[in-house]
């Protein structure tokens, strides 16, 4: 289980979503107050998140279509995240 945390480049929290790689499931997103609009921009399926849509989204951001979510998240955890498609978005990963 890992927590995927979406922040802006100032470090302000936007939303958090937990991912269970074994069961290939995701939790409901915890969206910060007043941040639903920007959350929808960063993750259009925020209101009905799924493992598949999160995998597709992050693979798209990383220009790695078809890459599995676990590989992408592990890479982000170790190396950090930046995408030219959303230059102000940062993704952080925490265990738990």
């Amino acid at each position, binding site marked *: 289980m890992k927590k995927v945390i979406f922040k802006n480049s*100032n470090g302000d929290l936007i939303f958090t979503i937990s991912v269970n790689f074994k069961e290939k499931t995701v939790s409901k997103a915890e969206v910060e107050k007043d941040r639903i609009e*920007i959350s929808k921009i960063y993750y*259009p399926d925020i209101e009905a998140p799924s493992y598949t849509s999160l995998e597709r*989204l992050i693979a798209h951001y990383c220009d790695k279509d078809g890459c599995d979510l676990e590989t992408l998240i592990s890479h982000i955890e170790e*190396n*950090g995240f*930046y995408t*030219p498609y959303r*230059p102000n978005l940062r993704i952080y990963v925490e265990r738990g």
Partner: protein
Amino acid sequence: MKRLALTKEGTLTYCVAKDENIGKGRCNHIAHKRDEESVEEFVIRAEKDLNNSIRVLDLKNLIDVDGLNTIPNATLGDDGVIRLNEGKSFGSPKMVGNQFKGDLIIDNKGFTFKKFVKLDRLNPLINGHWRHGMDYSNSSITEDICSRFIESISNTGIKSVLYNFSIFDLGNGIETGTISDNYMEENVSEELAIAPNSEREDMKNFRVTFDEYYDNVATENDYNKILESMIDFFGRYRVKPDIAKKFIIQQAGLDLILGNEDRKKNPSNFIFLIPSSIKEDVIPLNMDYGRCLQIFWTETSESRIEDMPDSEDVINEIAMEEAKNFSGGGLFGGNNLKESVDFLIDNGFEPFNLDKEKFLASFNNLEEKISKHGLKFKNYIKLKKKFIEEILDNKEIKRMLKGGY
């Protein structure tokens, strides 16, 4: 002369370098106080520059799953060419549009900048060729000219992206394109306003469909109906009606003068800056001027005119002829110029305060870059210069300029 300046380490000291020596030799400053700035204004700007610089350094070593730099590094050489550093790969093919684009971290003698690069090369995902003519294959020149035009107006009333013509070597030999600053400020996301008919993951959230835009704007000829629809579309993204109208009219003013052929028919050329907090205003952004000031000109035209003894006269004649038929561009252009100007003025257009001398002088810089690298656009640039001079001399266009010129 000494002026307040910011060092790389973040301290403010006085710089005694002459203007021409700024950033060279013993000057280790990354920002200098401008004459028109107060000390307070400079300190605010300097802090912002320093923060940006730190952020760029943070991003510099990020790698992707394949071990490549996420944002490739390049170096600006003494010859003015931006060269990709060894072992790097440039470009983000999924960026919307025909041109190949991407971010680049550029080192310039110890200073590091992150820039958005738009090459004149086609996006590799597009199979095909540019349509014939330099207006298609070398739109970077037009974008530079239009950016300098916008920069020479003190009161456009709207936020605009400014592009600079640049020469690159990104692993494909010498090529041309533009660089621009990242136009997104902190806490802001940039969003295309109208669906570009795409099924992409991050583009599912459009509040205006391609068909709606096509029916109500792209194919509509009634200016009032177009304005009404656009204000409605902007409103769906929380842009207040008065801000929307002001933006649409002022942008249309620029597009009319610059003959922009890529606004009305292209829904992907409307962009908003959306703040992360719902309490802050959404800001429309003016961008993309590659299809302005269109005159058909090819490499063959360029080389033929070189051999003509009276090339200057021929260029002037072509430009004057084109300007005679000029009917403007943008949402409210392309038909009767007088009616377009009347419509804009009736809807609150604020005439532009243009520093014409500054604008025309900016062509020297462009010509210098071209000639330094032996690029064959010299006459094309002269043609564009004469063309816009003629447009600015048009009696209807003069109504849009303060003082009328």
